[in-house]
Structures are given as C-alpha cells and as structure tokens.
C-alpha cells in the first residue's frame, strides 16, 4: 500500500498506521470521525459509547440505519466502519467512560484521545484522565451550524476546565411555583409535576404555591380560618398529603387534577395578594370551561387552544397512569422527551399554566425543544468538525505541535472572510483548579449549617466534578471526613455539619479522587451571611491561594466572588438522554449536563483570542456556545 498516491509522506503514514487512538463517543461527531480516521490510515482504534441508536440520530449519524435503532452505537459503528476498511483493528465498548476500569493506566496506552462527546460532565472527566495520564486530547463539539475543535496538552495548553463553565440557567423556586413570567418557567413546573405524580419524588421539585416566597412576606395568604383541605396541603412544614398520594387517591382523575392545579391552587396564589400588586394576576380555569364542542385533530406543529391542551392533558395523563400502574408498587416513570405521553403531558400542562399566567403559548414541537434542551444537529457541521479533528491529529502525529489550533466553525463570515477560523492555543490558566500543579480553592460557607453530604455532593461532585471523593482534614492528624469506600449508610458523618468536625474559619481540607488522580486543597472561610439561597461562594483571593491556613483573610476586603452556587435555585438538569443520566452519570449526581448530542461548552465570546492573522477575534460569529 506504500505505492498508493497520498499527500502524506511514507514515514508519516507509518506513524499513522501505528498510532493507537481512543475515540470517546460514537454519535454525531464520532461517526464522522471514525470514518475519517480509517480512511486516513489509522488502524488501531478503541471506541466507547454507552448510548443506543435512536431514530432521531439517523439524519447525521451515517454509520447507523433504521434497522439498528435500539442497538449499541459503539458496536454498530465498529461494524459499519470495518466495511470501509476490513483490516482496521477496532475495539468497541458499549460502556460508560466513568467506569473505573478506564483508569490512568488504561489511558496511558494511547498516543492520542479524541473526544466526540455531548456533555460537560464526561468532557471534564476525560480532561482529568488525560491530564493524569499525560496523553494529548483533542476536544470538539457542534451545535447547529456552529462547531469547535481544540487540542489539550498537559502543561502546554489550557485544559478543558481552565475556563469556568458558563452559569447554569436557573430560576428561583418561587418564580416557578408562584409567579412564572416565561414559558420556560411553566415547562420546568410541568416537568416537576411529572416527577411529583409519576417519577422520582424530589423535595426540591415542589409544585404547590410557595408560601415562603419573600415577596409575599407578611402575607400568609390565609384568608378566613385557613382550615380548608387545600390550604393545609400548602403548609410546607407539615404537608398533610403528598401530591402523588392525593393523585393516587383520586385515581389520577384528569378532571380533579386539572381543577386542583389550575383552579384551586391558582386561587390560593391569588390570595397572596402582595404578589399581584405589580403583576397581572393569573386567571384560574375550570375543567368545565375547557370542554370542546367540536374536536379537531391535535396538531403538534401549531399552538393548541386551551380546549385542545385540556384534551391532550387528559389523554396523556391517562396514558401515563396506565404505564405507571404497569410498573407495580414502588415503580416510577422516568421523564423522557422522546416518550410521547410524557412530552404531551409536559406540553399541555405548561401551555395551560402559560394561559393562566398570560404567557404566550407554544406548539408541542417547540415545547419539546425547550423541555428536552434539544440542540439542533446536522451532518455537514459534524463532518466539518470531524475533518478538523483529524487534521489536528495529523499535526500531532507529524510532531508539529506548533501547527495545532483551536478552530471555530462559523455560520457566516465577517470582514476577515474566515468561515473556519484558527486561533493559537492558550497556555494553561494560572490557578486553574484542575490543571494547576497544586490545585487549591477557597470557599466561603457556613460551617455551622453545611453538612458533609452537601459538601460532598454540591461542592466536590457538582462544582468540582469529582466522581468519588475522599476528604481528609489537614489538621495534622489526618482525620478522614468523607470516605469514598463506605456505603451511604455506613458514612454516619454525612448528615453532620462541618463544624462538628472542628472545621472552622481557616480550616484546610484535602479532597482526592483516586480514579481521576486528582486532588485539591480546599480552604474554608466561615461565613454566616451568605446571600439568600447560596450555600457557598468561591473566593478568588490572590493572597489566599497557596497561602497557609493561619493567614487571616477578611472576605469583605480582598475577596472577589467569581462563582456562586445557590441552593434551592432550580436547575434544569434533565439530560436529553435518560440512559445517560441514569448510567453514564451515577445516580443522584447532578451535573451540569443539560444538553443534547454533540454540543460543546466553550464560550469563545468571553475570550479574545490571538488569531493567526494577528486579528483579535471578538465578534458575534465567534460565539460558540453551548451545553
């Protein structure tokens, strides 16, 4: 085959043939990438993907056909690519990249890792594994017409986590429960309602009027003696009966549920009259008012009338009831945008609520985009991105690292005429809490109220992206605060507050994730007066970073909040793909992966990059987004 005409020299071709690659993801970008790799001459490829093939993949994931729907992406991709090149040595794994068997040793066997992922959690994890194993990583993503490719090399370039994640879109609980002003608020509420009725019950997903709304302060809303059934059920401290129990008792009767949600509860909200002093008050509706004289076929592409939504509500709640009952005792449904009853339920509930609050309704099709966080995806963008990935890989194989670039795929060109815009790679960001030599972070939190469990879940796992952290108190005695080995039940300390372990202002902790080979020192600043709803703040004090615990820091004077995480603020965490949220990410781990397939989360609009023609790029075309 050395006779074949090619623009690659024979020595480069030999290196290409011998290189060992790890492709993480066999979806939109992954399919294109695998094809390009084998055609270019790469022969040793491992590919991993936990996902199975869905019909909505077929417009771009060209290695799959209708007959493959439901099968493993990794396995089918392998078979399909082998038809192009039977002598390629491809190993496919239908598995989660978070599986501990893919440890540092595993990553070290590869010359190069190529990410073709669709969520930040997995990208963070692979980033850490590649830093630990010191293997170069090519990162990529696409969303609609936009795309991006970059190269990450330990100690030389920025790592994936050098740039902070864009803030999660979140809404205050009282907006969702009491005063929605946008359709998305109603959609979030509808998804909560789904879980309250059929899914995993979550105390953070209450759908009843929120009497603790600060806006309604001194206005308990209770009129008269407040002894009616409904009013008692709104008492947050001692709910007499859960929404689910109530629904079960009335056998999911569409009319009764409708009237409670859209009439009784709305009337209760109206009684909290402080809320409506500067807002248009909602208008309760009764089931009886929504009955149609003449039924026409429901059209998911157009905005439905209130009557049509009531019908869709009734149909979908009946379908969900049947499914739910099939699950038996203790069973539950998992919300999935691709399941029609769940989606119809969400759309009808959100639109009826929108109607009540004078918010513009949308079609089922549009509600699905918003509820499922669907990011549009097309074959051509993925093809372009995958081509750019292999060109970066060739730079690395040719040992021309200086030629590697971050490349943005734009939708249109501006005066620089660049549709594909290369920018030089940035060096590692000082103080990055992942790739710095000795990562360190300083947090303001209330040690008297924050529990070990909150510290582990909301800070170490959710904010710092750890999978299974061990935490030691740097008190000179090596006290273990949290152990990743123990079961939840055995970990007695989890419910206790930090101060019960003598963690106070100035304490230092070391959190360590064995799999990621990642540890970070956490400096604690005790703070009792955090703004409402916040459980911690990241404090970026130049003086504190790397300083000893004894050093006094006055938060008011020399700290600068650069990151805020709020408790009880609602996050849309639902991943588009239920299998990913269940298996790929271990249960209960709430990560900021809100996106659908193929997207990347690097917001270049926040950076001004030095581009090849020495033009500072900071224009709208360069905004590549997403997650």
């Amino acid at each position: 085959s050395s006779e074949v005409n090619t623009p690659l020299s024979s020595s480069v071709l030999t290196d290409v043939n011998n290189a060992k690659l790890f492709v993480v993801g066999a979806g939109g970008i992954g399919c294109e990438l695998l094809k390009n790799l084998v055609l270019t001459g790469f022969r040793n490829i491992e590919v991993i993907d936990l996902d199975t093939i869905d019909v909505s993949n077929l417009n771009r994931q060209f290695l799959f056909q209708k007959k493959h729907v439901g099968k493993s992406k990794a396995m089918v991709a392998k078979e399909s690519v082998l038809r192009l090149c039977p002598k390629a040595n491809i190993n496919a794994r239908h598995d989660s990249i978070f599986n501990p068997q893919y440890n540092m040793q595993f990553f070290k066997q590869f010359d190069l890792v190529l990410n073709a992922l669709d969520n930040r959690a997995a990208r963070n994890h692979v980033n850490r594994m590649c830093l630990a194993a010191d293997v170069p990583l090519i990162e990529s993503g696409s969303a609609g017409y936009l795309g991006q490719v970059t190269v990450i090399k330990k100690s030389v370039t920025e790592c994936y986590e050098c740039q902070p994640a864009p803030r999660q879109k979140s809404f205050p609980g009282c907006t969702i429960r009491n005063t929605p002003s946008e359709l998305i608020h109603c959609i979030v509420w509808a998804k909560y309602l789904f879980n309250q009725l059929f899914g995993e019950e979550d105390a953070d997903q209450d759908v009843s009027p929120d009497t603790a709304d600060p806006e309604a302060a001194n206005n308990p809303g209770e009129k008269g003696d407040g002894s009616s059934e409904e009013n008692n059920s709104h008492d947050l401290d001692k709910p007499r009966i859960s929404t689910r129990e109530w629904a079960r008792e009335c056998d999911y009767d569409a009319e009764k549920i409708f009237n409670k949600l859209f009439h009784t509860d709305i009337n209760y909200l109206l009684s909290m009259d402080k809320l409506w002093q500067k807002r248009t008050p909602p208008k309760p509706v009764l089931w009886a008012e929504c009955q149609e004289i003449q039924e026409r076929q429901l059209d998911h592409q157009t905005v439905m009338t209130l009557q049509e939504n009531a019908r869709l509500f009734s149909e979908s709640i009946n379908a969900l009831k049947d499914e739910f009952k099939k699950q038996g005792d203790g069973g539950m449904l998992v919300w999935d945008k691709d399941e029609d009853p769940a989606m119809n339920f969400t759309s009808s509930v959100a639109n009826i609520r929108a109607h009540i609050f004078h918010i513009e309704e949308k079609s089922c099709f549009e509600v699905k985009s918003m509820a499922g966080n669907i990011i549009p995806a097309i074959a051509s963008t993925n093809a372009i991105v995958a081509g750019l990935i292999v060109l970066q890989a060739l730079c690395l194989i040719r040992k021309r690292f200086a030629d590697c670039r971050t490349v943005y795929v734009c939708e249109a060109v501006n005066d620089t005429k660049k549709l594909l815009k290369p920018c030089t790679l940035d060096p590692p960001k000082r103080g990055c809490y992942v790739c710095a030599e000795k990562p360190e972070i300083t947090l303001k939190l209330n040690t008297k109220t924050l529990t070990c469990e909150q510290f582990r879940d909301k800070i170490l796992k959710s904010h710092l992206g750890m999978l299974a952290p061990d935490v030691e108190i740097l008190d000179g005695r090596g006290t273990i605060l949290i152990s990743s080995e123990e079961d939840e039940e055995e970990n007695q300390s989890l419910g206790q507050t930090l101060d019960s372990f003598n963690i106070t202002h100035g304490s230092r902790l070391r959190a360590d994730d064995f799999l990621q080979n990642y540890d970070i020192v956490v400096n604690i600043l005790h703070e009792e007066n955090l703004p409402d709803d916040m459980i911690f703040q990241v404090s970026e004090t130049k003086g504190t970073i790397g300083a000893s615990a004894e050093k006094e820091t006055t938060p008011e004077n020399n700290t600068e909040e650069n990151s805020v995480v709020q408790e009880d603020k609602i996050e849309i965490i639902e991943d588009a793909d239920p299998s990913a949220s269940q298996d790929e990410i271990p249960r209960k781990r709430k990560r900021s992966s809100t996106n659908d397939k193929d997207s990347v989360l690097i917001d270049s609009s926040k950076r001004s990059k030095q581009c090849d023609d020495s033009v500072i790029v900071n224009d709208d075309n360069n905004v590549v987004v997403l997650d």
Partner: protein
Amino acid sequence: DSEITNEEFAQYDRQIRLWGLDAQKRLRQSKILVAGVGGFGSEVVKNIVLSGVFSVTLLDERKVCEEDFCSQLLITTNHVGMNIAEASKVRTQELNPNVEVYVDTESLDSKTADYFAKFDIVCVTRCTLQQRLDINNMCRKKNVKFFSGDVFGFYGYCFLDLGEHEYVEEVTVNKQVAISVEDGSAEEKTKSSETVSIKKTATFCSYETALKEDWKLRNRRSLRQSSSVFYILQILDEFQSRHQRLPIQNSMDSLTLSLIRKEILTKAGMKENFVSDDFQDFCCSVLSPVAAVVGGVMAQEVIKACSKKNKPHQNFFFFNGLNHTGIVDNICPK
C-alpha cells in the same frame, strides 16, 4: 403529496429544529446531480442524501481504484474495478431510504444542456476547467444552480453560481409590550422576541467571469485575507490541461508544478510567494479529513440553495488543511 410523514419527522427532527419545516419541504422536492463520485464527491453525496432531498443522481464513468480507499466512503474493498457510481449506489441508498438514488455511468462530456435542465442543482467534481466552464454556462442558460468543488491533498475549494438567488433569512427582533395592571397603579413591561422572515436576493457571476477578476486591484489588506488555494487550483487546472491527469507524489510532477506556479502567479501579477513554495508536496490525491471539511461546507450550501433558507456563501470557499483556515471569498470583477 407534500405532507411530511410522522416517520420523516422523527428522522429529520434535529434538522427541522434548525432550518424549519418549510425548508425541509423544499429540500424533499429537490433533484440533485453529483458528477464525480470520488472521495470528495462521496462526502457531498452523504450529506445531501442524509438531509432528505428528493433524488440524487451519481454520475461517473470511472472505475474504482486503490487510491479511492483513502477517501471514498460509499464503496468497499471488493468494488475494485467496478464503476464507482454503480459501486456507491447501495451504500448511498442505505443512508436514507426516502431518497431516490440514480446512477449514470456515461461520460460527463456526453451530457447536454437538456440533461442538466432535469436537475435543480448540478454539482461537478473531479473535472477539468473546461468542463466546469461549459457546464456552468449550460446551467446558467437553463436556470439550474451550479456548484463545483474538489480536494487536492490538503487543499480544497468549492464554487457556487446560483444565478439570481432568492432566499429567506430569519431575524429576531425584540419588542417590549406594556401591560397595564387592572387597577392601573402599575405598568409591567414584558419583553418578547419575534422571529421575522426577510426575503432577499443574491446575484452570482459565472466561473468564467470570476476568473476575469484582476487581483492586482486587490489591496494589501484584501490580499492578506485572500486564499492561496485559488491559485493552487489554477496551477492544478493548468497541470491537468497539459498532462490530461492530476499530479502524483513524485519529483517529476513536483518540478512541473513549481514551474507552473511561477507562470500562473507571474501572469496574474501576483508575488510568487503568495503560494508557498512547498505546496506541491501537499496537493496530491484526496486527503479524507479535507474532503470531509470541504464536502461539509459544499453540501451545506447545496442544502441552503435547495431550501432557499439563509444567505449563501458568495461565491468561493477555500480550505487549507495545513493551517486550518477556511475562507469565503467573492471573486468577481468589480
């Protein structure tokens, strides 16, 4: 029947959310010709077939050769010696059963203006400059939208002549609505955004006209933003017209290419180093990732042209896979 079925909806969901239902409906009425089904052509075919056009015709008289296995994604190793359009048919059909797939194994030169008039869009790849000029002019006469494109090693281009092209662009406008609260004591302003479709027209010139632009009139800034791939394409066209083949990776052809480079650039009044002096080491055969990039851009332009949605790139796209730069340039005498 132009109603999109539920099955189609499920399959095209992710792209209908991008370009809308009207665009998808226009796509599924479009008839496309792809002449030249090498590595680059196969990328274009893949992307447009996946998008759900009405039909695609694969035209190529050539037989599958070893070199195709480095870039052509629609054939398998047991197709050696078979007509490449014929060999690509099965895989093309598998990509999307909704699309009619036709094969034509005759020569491109045998085709007349009436043949091209049967298509909404004609794409030519792996053809001579003369074929490009002739077919472009035939398409102009018949109001058929014309595309050409190709990949040479690390370099690639595509060209569009959509004639007088009408398209729709969506613009989001924000508006503020004032809502008076019932007792009149307060006023609430709610922001809402609205998407408005705007009709626009773009006028294209022919390939022949584009070649008449005098690059000496481009200023330094403009030249810095221009792509050398335009001249690499001309050098390769000249090589092909002299040798009736494209160059291969050997010292003889390298030398010839260097000489042609000097001639072409001198004739155009350009500095010789506008094209780097080692370009001939990187311009042979078709490099798969470059075909993917340029094929992706060209197919997206075909989709835009069929669906009459969004502003087309006017009128050349050039890609240099060595520095990862993709440039859209309007080359036309001013």
